[in-house]
């Protein structure tokens, strides 16, 4: 390791990094703008100047730009030399020529890297006497504000948006001091990672529009570590909340990235960043409701819909308690449906209340079997579930039937980085350091191979080297053949068509020759054969390479994999619930169904649900949002959302992670499990199981109970500190030391300060008292260090720049017993020859996914709604000429469960005979259980409306 001297101190350092990065890793302060830990150096801003001396005798040295300087063994550098300080001050003076100094009205103020660096430079006196340049701002969509006058032209925005994330519609325009960062014309930024501009921009050019709508300063937000609930990747977030004043309770105001090296690093997707507004939306359940016993005659309501009125929580709890007591005496059946979009703790509470035999996963059979399969595959020793840095290191990627940009966006961003590895290899052969970002990027364009086979590929399509668009059945067959070719390149009998055979041979060669191949697949195509084939490819490769091979399997929801740990074999899916009901049809005993945070209409088709509701006497729903199922509920309890509660979820890689309450939910809102415990408290008789439930006082009591009950989830015991944990005798503060207006917030009621609400679940305060130092605990999500008010302060809390957070990563892998996955038996019947149903213009509906539109919760976020497309169906109009159907025209999909109206959209990659139906898109949500499945396609009649 090279030794260098900085301002008289000797350091042993990593010679691979540039001087700026090295200094920051050492904890030294140097101001910088254009350099970014994830994007490397380009030497544009010149802010990070230092002095390098030729030797001990050299008194003056020469000015160097530290981000562009490789480490030289034995070199002598200075940060503090006067010449360096003066120059750094001069850069600030130059940058300030056109900066409007509008900090008091700027959303960035208080967490502004430009403010921090200006302070750090020591420059105070601006001598410029002229007028300032002004720009016109653009409308950039519902997510991002644009205020170009604040721009200091560091180029980070385009370097992230274009170079790192592959965006096409944000450019540096013009030249000299008129350089403008914007779009050619106004409009929504199209890339799904645009929100990162807010964090990448060192000042207030790009700010969070949703945050602006209810803005407070960073120091006035209370925060805690959270996990993004909008897909199964498990990105770490730091949501921020604060009271709106006038005595109202806190509201969630924004979500920002919380660095986790192995998952999200520095970046989030836009669904994750902007989806939070569902919590504040009009569809939020905030009170306790019961159904009115009146017949619905209103025309907008569907038959069977309930009308609800608010009731006192005690009344509802007393009622629920009576039902629980009745169930104890077998006077009532009590069934529970869990959910993959809520915590293990909530699911476990319901499971214990109704008994394991009466607890159902809330998934249909197919979805649950797919998750079991994912579990089995990931338990195989030959499979490696890759972290994000590992994905970024892959030198060949095979994506099998997963439109990863729309189903696990952060992983897609990582794949985009993997595509550059060939370029990076070339750079290394030319001795160009990898941090020399512009130099590396100018090397020849053809990237590492990315091979895709599936129905739709978004965003990565322009960097994919080979694509095959086919139905999932054909793709699975292709992938099995590929596995065959991998194990037996000479004599494999694949039975593929020549063109596909050629692709398969090519793909096999690439994967075989790759050092670090990566297979990507997932459950989104709803085909077990796809998962099997992906696993087969990975295991075959693993046997050849004699090391585990990376296989990332995307799942649908935040806790899909966690929930599936509660079920083994063939149990718990909703079809079995239907079966149970059928068996009990003759029973005189009434049935209460408790639905936990789940919209069943996304799980089962309408006919099955009609049957279900017919045989249930009473539906109790605990949830955050109103939806189709809530219309059928007799009792509704307001459940705490992720940001309002604590719990544990397991991501698609099998990593258990804990999220913590940012603030207490409004009014009666509380965790679903607490509603259940409260109901049991009301019971007069508490048998064994019930007494266990009443013993749960803290979220961690449930976590520990889960750890005892399920061997795979043992890690829940040690995942995070329990509520009694203290550091130096203190809890962790959720509010910053500068949190303002503690007394003013309630001043219209009284001037004395209210005692802060106590958190029963975590060793954290809903106040400014306690530990503030992120160095001391992972629970501190307010990443702040003296002089570093912006998100760049994360530098101070990493082992080294871009490394792990000090104190290790949060989250622990669940312990699945390692066993080889069961041998795949080729399906007996050829799926392709399945007979077409006898309907006019039959088409096979394949699910396609949308970043904005496929997420159940984020679909209720106002800004996401604005970015979501109207119902559409993708049709290969060139191949499948259906009379009367044209691009952009309304069509109707006639299914076994109703007719859906949407716009026909020409999509040349959709295989003929198939249509792409957006999964979960508002207006088509109830179609999701039917995907994939058959429908009849016809041009829409002029005045037709959706019918049942």
């Amino acid at each position, binding site marked *: 390791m090279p030794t260098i001297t900085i301002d008289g101190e000797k350091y042993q350092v990593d010679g691979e990094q540039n001087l700026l990065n090295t200094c920051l890793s050492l904890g030294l302060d140097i101001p910088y703008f254009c350099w970014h830990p994830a994007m490397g150096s380009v030497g544009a801003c010149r802010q990070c100047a230092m002095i390098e001396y030729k030797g001990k005798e050299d008194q003056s040295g020469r000015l160097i730009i530290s981000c562009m300087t490789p480490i030289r063994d034995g070199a002598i550098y200075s940060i503090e030399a006067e010449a360096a300080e003066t120059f750094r001050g001069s850069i600030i003076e130059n*940058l300030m020529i056109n900066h409007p100094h509008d900090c008091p009205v700027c959303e960035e103020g208080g967490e502004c890297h430009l403010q921090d660096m200006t302070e750090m430079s020591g420059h105070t006196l601006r001598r410029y006497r002229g007028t300032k340049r002004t720009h016109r701002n653009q409308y950039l969509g519902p997510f991002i504000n644009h205020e170009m006058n604040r721009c200091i032209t560091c180029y980070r925005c385009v370097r992230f948006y274009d170079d790192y994330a592959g965006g096409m519609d944000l450019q540096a325009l013009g030249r*000299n001091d008129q350089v403008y960062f914007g779009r050619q014309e106004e409009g929504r930024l199209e890339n799904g990672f645009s929100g990162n501009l807010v964090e990448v921009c060192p000042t207030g050019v790009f700010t969070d529009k949703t945050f602006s709508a209810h803005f407070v300063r960073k120091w006035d937000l209370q925060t805690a570590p959270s996990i993004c609930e909008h897909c199964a990747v498990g990105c770490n977030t730091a949501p921020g909340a604060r009271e709106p004043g006038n005595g109202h309770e806190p509201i969630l105001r924004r979500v920002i990235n919380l660095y986790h090296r192995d998952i999200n690093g520095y970046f989030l997707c836009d669904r994750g960043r902007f989806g939070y507004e569902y919590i504040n939306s009009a569809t939020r359940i905030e009170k306790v409701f019961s159904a009115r016993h009146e017949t619905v005659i209103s025309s907008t309501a569907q038959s069977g819909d309930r009308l609800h009125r608010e009731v006192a929580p005690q009344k509802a709890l007393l009622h629920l308690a009576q039902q629980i007591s009745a169930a104890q005496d077998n006077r009532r059946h009590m069934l529970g449906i869990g959910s993959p979009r809520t915590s293990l703790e909530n699911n476990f509470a319901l499971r214990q209340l109704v008994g394991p035999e009466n607890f159902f996963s809330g998934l249909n059979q197919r979805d649950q079997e797919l998750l079991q399969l994912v579990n089995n595959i990931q338990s195989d020793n030959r499979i490696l579930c890759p972290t994000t840095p590992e994905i970024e290191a892959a030198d060949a990627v095979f994506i099998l039937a997963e439109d990863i940009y729309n189903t696990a966006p952060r992983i897609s961003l990582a794949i985009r980085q993997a595509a550059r590895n060939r370029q990076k290899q070339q750079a290394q052969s030319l001795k160009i350091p990898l941090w020399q970002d512009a130099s590396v990027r100018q090397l020849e364009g053809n990237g590492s191979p990315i091979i895709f086979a599936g129905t739709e590929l978004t965003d990565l399509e322009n960097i994919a080297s080979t694509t095959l668009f086919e139905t999932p059945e054909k793709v699975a067959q292709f992938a099995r053949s590929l596995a065959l070719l991998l194990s037996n390149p000479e004599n494999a009998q694949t039975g593929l068509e020549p063109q596909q055979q050629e692709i398969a041979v090519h793909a096999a060669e690439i994967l075989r020759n790759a050092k670090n191949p990566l297979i990507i697949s997932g459950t989104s195509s709803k085909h077990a054969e796809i998962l099997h084939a992906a696993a087969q490819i990975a295991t075959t490769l693993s046997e050849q390479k004699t090391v585990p091979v990376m296989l990332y399997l995307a799942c649908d929801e935040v806790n899909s994999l966690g929930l599936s740990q509660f079920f083994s074999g063939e149990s718990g899916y909703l079809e079995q619930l239907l079966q149970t009901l059928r068996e009990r049809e003759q029973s005189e005993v009434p049935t209460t169904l408790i639905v936990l945070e789940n919209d069943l209409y996304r799980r089962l088709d309408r006919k099955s649900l009609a049957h279900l509701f017919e045989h249930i006497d009473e539906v109790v729903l605990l949830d955050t949002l109103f939806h189709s199922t809530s219309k059928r509920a007799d009792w509704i309890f307001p459940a705490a959302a992720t940001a309002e509660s604590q719990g544990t979820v397991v991501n698609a890689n099998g990593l258990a992670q804990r999220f913590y309450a940012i603030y207490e939910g409004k009014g009666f809102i509380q965790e679903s499990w607490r509603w259940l415990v409260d109901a049991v408290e009301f019971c007069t008789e508490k048998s064994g199981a019930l007494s266990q439930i009443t013993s749960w006082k803290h979220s961690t009591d449930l976590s520990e109970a889960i750890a005892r009950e399920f061997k795979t989830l043992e890690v829940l015991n040690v995942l995070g500190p329990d509520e009694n944990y203290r550091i130096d005798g203190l809890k962790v503060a959720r509010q910053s030391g500068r949190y303002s207006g503690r007394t003013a917030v309630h001043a219209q009621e009284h001037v004395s300060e209210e005692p802060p609400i106590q958190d029963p679940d975590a060793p954290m305060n809903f106040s400014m008292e306690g530990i503030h130092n992120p160095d001391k605990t992972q629970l501190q999500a307010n990443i702040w260090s003296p002089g570093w008010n912006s998100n760049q302060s994360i530098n101070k809390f990493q082992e080294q720049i871009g490394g792990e957070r000090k104190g290790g990563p949060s989250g622990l892998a669940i312990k699945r017993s390692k066993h080889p996955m069961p041998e795949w038996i080729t399906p007996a019947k050829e799926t392709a020859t399945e007979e077409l149903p006898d309907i006019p213009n039959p088409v096979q509906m394949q699910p396609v996914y949308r970043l904005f539109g496929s997420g159940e919760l984020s679909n209720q976020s106002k800004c996401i709604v604005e970015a979501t497309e109207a119902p559409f169906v993708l049709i290969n109009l060139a191949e499948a000429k259906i009379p009367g159907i044209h691009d952009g025209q309304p069509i109707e999909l006639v299914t076994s469960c109703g007719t859906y109206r949407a716009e026909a959209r020409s999509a040349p990659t959709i295989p003929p005979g198939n249509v792409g139906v957006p999964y979960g898109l508002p207006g088509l949500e109830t179609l999701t259980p039917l995907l994939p499945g058959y429908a009849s396609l016809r041009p829409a009649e002029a005045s037709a409306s959706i019918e049942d």
Partner: protein
Amino acid sequence: MLINPLTKNVTDQNIATDLERYLGNGGYVGWRKAHTIDPDKIIDLVKDGGLRGRGGAGFNTGLKWSFVPRGADAPEQKFIVCNADEMEPGTFKDRLLMERDPHLLLEGMAIAAYAIGASIGYIFIRGEYHLAAERLEYAIEEAKAQGLLGTDICASGFSLEIFVHRSAGNYICGEETALLNALEGRRAIPRAKPPFPQVSGLWGKPTVVNNVETFCNIPHLVEFGVDWYRGLGRGEDAGSKLFGVSGHVKNPGTWELPMGTPIREIIEQHAGGMHDGLRLRGLLPGGGSTDFLGPEHLDLPMDYDVIGKAGSRMGTGTIIVLDNKTCPVGLVLNLSQFFARESCGWCTPCRDGLPWVVKILQRIEAGEGRSEDLDLLHEQCKRIGPGNTFCALAPGAAEPLQSALVRFEQDFFNHINQHRCPYR
């Protein structure tokens, strides 16, 4: 012996030397000869000949070529690029060569391409040079028709295609790496070095970028050899060069003269001296981005190192003369406005510093300057000095200003004290 190899085909008539006349005058002899020589030997020849880059930096051309990786491991595709983006204020030499003798440039590029193993060449030409671009395109067609360019040239197995690319107009494109970015369709901003273009240039492939005049030196250097070429110069530097003079002289223009011709000879003999009644106060020896020299430097020979020692740069060798009736503050303001406008906007000192300089100079010229403005100007010159900025544009812009601040200090004071421009 030939003493004007660059302009021997240039006549008083504004026509391009066509292929027939070019060949008749001994054209493409160097190109034919080159085929018989090992590429490495040509590089050595050019190195030994002492040809220095005529774009302004004066780097040894053969040495530049020798950095191109060769051998089996080297990338097969290489590029030769001609920097014809002549935008330096006061410079008009390449235009003459391209308009009057386009084949000389093509021949020079062809030999260079052969020497480094490039099969594709680009002429990146200033957008306003319509005539030169047309004449070059015509000449390329002529040469291709005769088998002097194209595939398997003169049955040697060597192939070369040359394309003319018209610049969208940006001074920074004269910086070779910004030129490459522009050629690739990217923003014209300079690249970090290393890697140098010889290793990773156009589309990441080994690339040599040379100035028009540099290429035009090659054919005769190859034809007549090192000794002849070195003998052309009167001083240390080898060869001949196009020198020019602009300003209030009797006969502004451009002439091919031996390297090392004294400044006085260029101004007084060739440019006919100052207009009657005017006195020479200073001169920029090599275009708008060089330091002022004064009357005391008139007897210096125009050699790279001599002019460098005198505190300026030979640059493009085209002299701008300042007389005693022209305001030096106005001159520097004019130049600074050009450089500020042409800043690519990449690095802070240049992007934000130069417009500030312009505003200060405007104030001074308008009689609204303050004495502290001069300190600020001195400071700005230091800030945009070499090494502080990403490329050489801003340091170049500082050169006329920093030298004017010293040499014409009294003029600046007079502006400030009299609250007006004394020359008006």
